[in-house]
C-alpha cells in the first residue's frame, strides 16, 4: 500500500499553482504523479504512447478495468476522474493519455467498492442481475457511479449511453441504476460523492510531465510548441492514432487547460467559444438556450466522450461528419487561428475547410476560439441529427439551420450540413432560394440543395439516402406547425 490519504489532502495547492503559471516552461516544483484510488502514485514521466488504461492494468495491476475496443466506443474501460474543477466524471481510460490525468485522482472499480464493502451501484447490480458475462460490468459501475453524482434518476439511459453490454439487454442495469439512486439518497443524505469511499476532499490541480506538456496559458503554450510535437485536447479522436495505429510521437502538447482557450462568454456583442471548451460544458450552456441543440448534444458521443472532447478538436480534426461544424456554420461563426508566436487571424468558418480532411490551418497554428457576432436568436436555430443508432453514433447527416421569419416569410437563412460532402458545408445558394419567400415555398431551395450536395456511399449510408435526408431535414426545419417534428418530441 502506498501513501494513503484519509483526509483527502492533495499535495498541491491549486490556487497558488494557478496564479504562478506564467513562466515559459512548465513548473516542476512538485513531485509528479497522480492519485489512483486512495494512493498517491509518483511518476517521473508520462510516456507519450501510454494510456491511462494501460497504466492501470499493466503498471498498477488494477485489472478490474477492461479494454473492450481501445477506441472509446464501448465504455468497458470507464473510470472516474476527480479533476481540478472538483467534478467527478467518467472517462474512457483507453483513450485518455496518462499525462492528461497527472495530478488528478483516478477512481477505478476497485476503488469504487470492494466485495466486502460494495458501493450502492455495485450492490444493486448484483441484486438485480445486472451482470452476465461481467466484462462490461466494471465500466457500467463507473458510469453509474458518475451518473449518481452528475445525473438524474430519470436519465439513467443517458448516463450509460457510452457503455455497451452484449448480454443483458440493459433492463437490469437500468433498474440497478434507479435503485442505486434511492439507496444513495437514503444512506448518504443525497450526497452521492460520499458513496465513493476513496474520494479526496480537496481539488487537485494540473501537472505536466517531460513528454506530456500541459501549458496553462498561451505563453506557456507557445513555449511548449517549440519542438513541433502534436497538439492534443481531449484526445477522444486524436488518441486513436496511438490506441489503434500504435503511433509513438516524441511527446504531446495538451491544450485542454490553456486558460484563454477555455473561455465561454460574451465579449461586447460577440459570443466567444474557446477551442478547449468541452462538449459537456457546451451542453450545459445549450440547455438554457436551445432544446434542439441540447437534444443533439445528448446524442453526441457519450458522457465519457463529452466530458473530454472539445469543440476545437471537433473542428480541428477536419472530419466531414463532425457535429459541431454545421452548428457553428449555421450560427455564422468565425474561427480564430494563432501561430506559435501569438499572431492571430480571423476568418469565416466556412473558409476553414479546403477539401477532405484538409484545412487552411498551418502546421504551427492552433485554433484559439470561435466568435459569433451579434445577438443570437436561439429559437431560430434548428439542429437535426440522423444516425444509424440513436445514441453514440456518428451522424449520417446532420443539418443545422438558422431561420428567421417575418410572418410566413423567411427573412434570414443560414443552412449547413455535415455528412453530405467532403467537408462540412454551408449552402448560400439554398439560403438565397429561401429568403424572401414563404417557408412552405421551398421548391427552389430543394433544387438548389440537390445541386449543392456531393454525398458519398459508405459504411453509414448510401449517397441517395444522404441526399434525401438533407432535403427531409431542411423541410423539417421549415415546418413551423405546432405538431411534433421529431420522434423525441412525439414521445416526450
Amino acid at each position, binding site marked *: 500500500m502506498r501513501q494513503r490519504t484519509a483526509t483527502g489532502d492533495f499535495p498541491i495547492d491549486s490556487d497558488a499553482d494557478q496564479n504562478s503559471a506564467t513562466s515559459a516552461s512548465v513548473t516542476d516544483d512538485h513531485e509528479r504523479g497522480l492519485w489512483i484510488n486512495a494512493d498517491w502514485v509518483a511518476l517521473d514521466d508520462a510516456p507519450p504512447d501510454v494510456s491511462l488504461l494501460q497504466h492501470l492494468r499493466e503498471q498498477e495491476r488494477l485489472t478490474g478495468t477492461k479494454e473492450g475496443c481501445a477506441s472509446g466506443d464501448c465504455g468497458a474501460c470507464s473510470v472516474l476522474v476527480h479533476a481540478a474543477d472538483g467534478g467527478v466524471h467518467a472517462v474512457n481510460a483507453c483513450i485518455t493519455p496518462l499525462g492528461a490525468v497527472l495530478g488528478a485522482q483516478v477512481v477505478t472499480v476497485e476503488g469504487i467498492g470492494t466485495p466486502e464493502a460494495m458501493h450502492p451501484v455495485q450492490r444493486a447490480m448484483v441484486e438485480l442481475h445486472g451482470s452476465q458475462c461481467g466484462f462490461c460490468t466494471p465500466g457500467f459501475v463507473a458510469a453509474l457511479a458518475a451518473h449518481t453524482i452528475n445525473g438524474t434518476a430519470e436519465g439513467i439511459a443517458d448516463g450509460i449511453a457510452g457503455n455497451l453490454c452484449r448480454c443483458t439487454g440493459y433492463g437490469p442495469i437500468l433498474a440497478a441504476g434507479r435503485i442505486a439512486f434511492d439507496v444513495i439518497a437514503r444512506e448518504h443524505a443525497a450526497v452521492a460523492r460520499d458513496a465513493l469511499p476513496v474520494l479526496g476532499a480537496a481539488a487537485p490541480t494540473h501537472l505536466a510531465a517531460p513528454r506530456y506538456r500541459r501549458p496553462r496559458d498561451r505563453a506557456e503554450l507557445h513555449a511548449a510548441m517549440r519542438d513541433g510535437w502534436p497538439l492534443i485536447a481531449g484526445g477522444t479522436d486524436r488518441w486513436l492514432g496511438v490506441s489503434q495505429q500504435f503511433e509513438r510521437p516524441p511527446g504531446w502538447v495538451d491544450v485542454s487547460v490553456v486558460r484563454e482557450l477555455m473561455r465561454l462568454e460574451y465579449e461586447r456583442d460577440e459570443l466567444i467559444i474557446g477551442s478547449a471548451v468541452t462538449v459537456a460544458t457546451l451542453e450545459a450552456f445549450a440547455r438554457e438556450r436551445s432544446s434542439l441543440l441540447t437534444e443533439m448534444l445528448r446524442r453526441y458521443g457519450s458522457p465519457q466522450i463529452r466530458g473530454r472532447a472539445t469543440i476545437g478538436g471537433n473542428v480541428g480534426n477536419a472530419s466531414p461528419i463532425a457535429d459541431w461544424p454545421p452548428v457553428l456554420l449555421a450560427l455564422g461563426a468565425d474561427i480564430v487561428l494563432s501561430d506559435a508566436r501569438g499572431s492571430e487571424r480571423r476568418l469565416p468558418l466556412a473558409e476553414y475547410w479546403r477539401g477532405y480532411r484538409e484545412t487552411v490551418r498551418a502546421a504551427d497554428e492552433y485554433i484559439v476560439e470561435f466568435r459569433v457576432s451579434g445577438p443570437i436568436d436561439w429559437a431560430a436555430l434548428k439542429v437535426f441529427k440522423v444516425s444509424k443508432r*440513436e*445514441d453514440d453514433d456518428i451522424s449520417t447527416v446532420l443539418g443545422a439551420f438558422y431561420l428567421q421569419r417575418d410572418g410566413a416569410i423567411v427573412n434570414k437563412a443560414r443552412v449547413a450540413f455535415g455528412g453530405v460532402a467532403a467537408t462540412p458545408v454551408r449552402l448560400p445558394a439554398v439560403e438565397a432560394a429561401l429568403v424572401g419567400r414563404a417557408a412552405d415555398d421551398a421548391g427552389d431551395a430543394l433544387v438548389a440543395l440537390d445541386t449543392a450536395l456531393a454525398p458519398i456511399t459508405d459504411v453509414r449510408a448510401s449517397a441517395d439516402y444522404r441526399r434525401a435526408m438533407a432535403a427531409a*431535414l431542411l423541410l423539417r426545419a421549415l415546418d413551423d406547425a405546432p405538431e411534433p417534428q421529431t420522434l423525441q418530441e412525439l414521445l416526450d
Partner: protein
Amino acid sequence: MSRPHESAVGHVTGTANYVDDLPQPADTLHVATGYADAARATIAALRLDAVRAAPGVVDVVVAADIPGKLDVGPVYPGDPLLADGELRYAAQPLFAVAATSFAAAQRAARMIDVDVEPQPAILSVADALAADAAVLPSRHWHFDAESAATPSTPPAPPTQEATRIAGKRYIRGQEHFYLEGQVALAIPEDGGELRIYSSTQYPDEVQHLVAGVLGIPMHRVRVVCRRMGGAFGGKESQAASLACIAALFAWRTGRAVKYRMPRRDDMIQTGKRHDFHADYELACDAQGRLVDAKVTLAGKCGHSPDLSEGIVDRAMFHFAHAYYVPKIDITGHRSRTDTVSNTAFRGFGGPQGMLVMEAALDELAHAAAIDPLKLRRTNLFAPGRDVTAYGQRVEQFVLADMLRRLERDCDYRQRQATAREFNARHKRFKKGMALTPVQFGISFTVAHLNQTGALVHVYADGSIEVNHAGTEMGQGLHTKMIEVAARVFGVARERVRVTATQTDKVPNGSPTAASAGSDLNGMAVQRACLMIRARLAAFAASQAGESLGAAESTPAREDVRFRDGDVSVGAWRQSFDALVDAAYHARVQLSATGFYATPEVHFDKEAGRGKPFYYYAHGAAASEVVIDVTTGEYRILRVDILHDVGASLQEAMDRGQIEGGYVQGLGWLTTEELLWDDAGRVISNSPANYKIPTAHDRPRELNIDLYRADNPQPTIRRSKAVGEPPLMLAISTWCALRDAASAAGEHAVLPRLAAPATPEAVFWAVREATGASQDAS
C-alpha cells in the same frame, strides 16, 4: 427463488478475472499477426526482415514453421492456421510475430512487405451461386405429407390453392461483438506440457487442435477456461487459432505467450453470422391453410466450411418454422466466398431460416387479405398436422395457447385499433405492430456432440466442488449447476463451487453451444451427485441403524433425506458436514464422475429425415413501433414476450437470457449492418461504424413472462434450453417496422424491408409503400 449469478460480486468489483487479467510470468511474449489487403491472391514474395528486426521482436513464424498440422478446421479441413502460399480472404494472417509487448508486436506486424498476385475473387452470395462455388455440397430435402402419411397421420384432404406469393430476400450477417475480444495465454510446463488459458466455448477442441498443430498427444495439453467475457457462438471454433499460435510460440521459445486480438483484428479476422440469400414461394388455400412451400437458402460461408454444414442445415430445419406445410421443397447451398469464414452465432442459421418464413407469411397474409396473426395461428403444428419437413413429429403443441395468451395479456387487438387511429391522425409518424412465434429445435444436429461429463468432489469438510465440460460465458450455466448440485445434497448454494472448465478434469467435452449447456451438463452433474449421495445415504442408513441399536432394523437407504444442510432418516439426524466427515473416516468414496448422452436424436442429412431435435423450445413476442416516414428513424415502443423455458432451473438466469437474446436479435435486425467493400474487406470494422444496441434502443416498455409448462421430455428437472431461442423473438419487431412502413401507404403495398432494418432501410420501405421512386427527393 433467484440467486445472483455465481460471479456477480466479482463482476461488479472487478475481481472476476478474464484471461487478460491473469498474473502473467515476467517474460511473457505478446503476439500479433500480419496480413495483406487482397481478398484472393497468390503470395509471390513475403519478406519479413523488417519484422524480425523490429524492436522487441523475439520470434516470427510462417506456415512452414508449424511442426504438426497446419489445418485447424473444426469439422472439415480448410482453415490453415497461417496462409500457405495463397490468400483466401482479406486480412488472413500471413505470419505471426511474438514480441516483448503488445504494442511492439502490433508495430512489428505492420512492417510486413509482401507481393501478392490478385486472383479473381468471389465476394457475394450471388456471385458464388452464379459460379457454383460452395464449401460443401448442396442439400435438397423434399417432403410430401401424402407420401409420408402413416396410419397415425392420414393424408390431409387435398386443398385448393388460392393465393401464392414468391420473392427473394437477403439477410445480412452479424458481428458477435463479445465485449472481451479473443484471447489465449500459453504457459510451458514441466515435461513438454502446455497449459493454455483460453477464452473458448470449446476447451476440448482447443486442446485437440493445439496438440495437432504441435504434433504432440492431447495428454500434454491442458486447457483452462474460467469464464468468457461473452461468446455467443463466436468462441466455439474461432478461439482455437489464437491458442494454437500462442502455443506454437510457447513451444518454440519456452516462454509464456499471450495472444490477445485488438478489436479491429477481431472484427476482420474472425467469422460472423452468415448472410443468407433466399428465394421462396409460399401458397395457401382460401381458408388460409398453407398448401406448399419452396425455398432455396444460400448461406455466405466464406472461404472454408468451418461449421457451415450444420448452420445451413439449421436454416433449412427452421424455414417452415412453427408451421405445418404439407408439401415442401428445401434446397440449401453452402456458398463459398473469398471472405472470412463465417461461424456459429446464437441461433446457428435458425434465425435466418425463420425470418424468411415470417416475412413470407406477412406477404401471403397481405396478398390473401388475411390477418397475419390469424394466418400464423391457422398453420401452427397441431395434432394430425404435426410432421416437419425433415420427418420429425412435433409432440408438444403449446404455441396456440401461448399466442392466445400473449394476444390477450398485452391487449394486442385493442392496441392495434389504437395504432390505426394514430396512423389516421398522423402524416409524419406511423405505428406498426406484429406478433410472431418462435419454435426452435434443441440438440446438436451432429449427434456425437450430444454428450458430456462431470466430476464432483465432496471434500472432507462438506464443501462441494463441481467440474463439468460446459463453459461459462455469462449465461449462468455455473449458477444453474450450483442449483442442481445443492438441490441433490440438500445444502446451501454457498457450499457448492463450480471450478474453471479444465480438460484434465473432464475429458472429451462438447462445445457449450446449441443452447444445450444446462441440458447436457445438468444431467451429468446430477448423475455424479446422485452417485455420491447414494453412497452417503447407504452410510447414513448404517449409522442410523447403529445408533438405534439392535432393537430396530437398519433403515433403508432410500429413506434417507438430504435437506437444509442435514441428513436424516426417521428420528436420526446429522448435519451434512458431520456425516461427510464421518464417511471420510469410514473410507467412503466422496468423488464421482457423471456422464450424459441425449437419447433419441438421430438424423440422415442426405435424405433430410430423422429426429434431429430432442424437443422444441417456444416463445412469442408482440411488438409495437413508431417510425418517422420522412427519415426512416424509429423507436420501439413496447414489446411483450411470453417464453417457454419448461420448468425453470433458475428464473433470473432464464429471464436474463430472454431479454438479452431479444435485444441481441433486435440489433441483428435493426442497427447492426455488416458491410464489405468491393475489394472484399470488412468495412464495419469497429464499434464506431458497427452499432450494437445501447440502453436507449431497448424497447421503451419490455414485458417478459415465462410460460409455465414442464418439458415433456425428462430433461434436468423438466427445464428447457434458453440460450438461443429468445434471439428470434426480435423477428416480431422487424415485422412491426415493416407494418409501420406499409401504413405510410395505407397498406396498399407491403414493402420490401431490408434486414437489418436500419433507418435508411425503413426510409426506402416507406418510399416503396408510398409509391415514390428512390431518386426523387
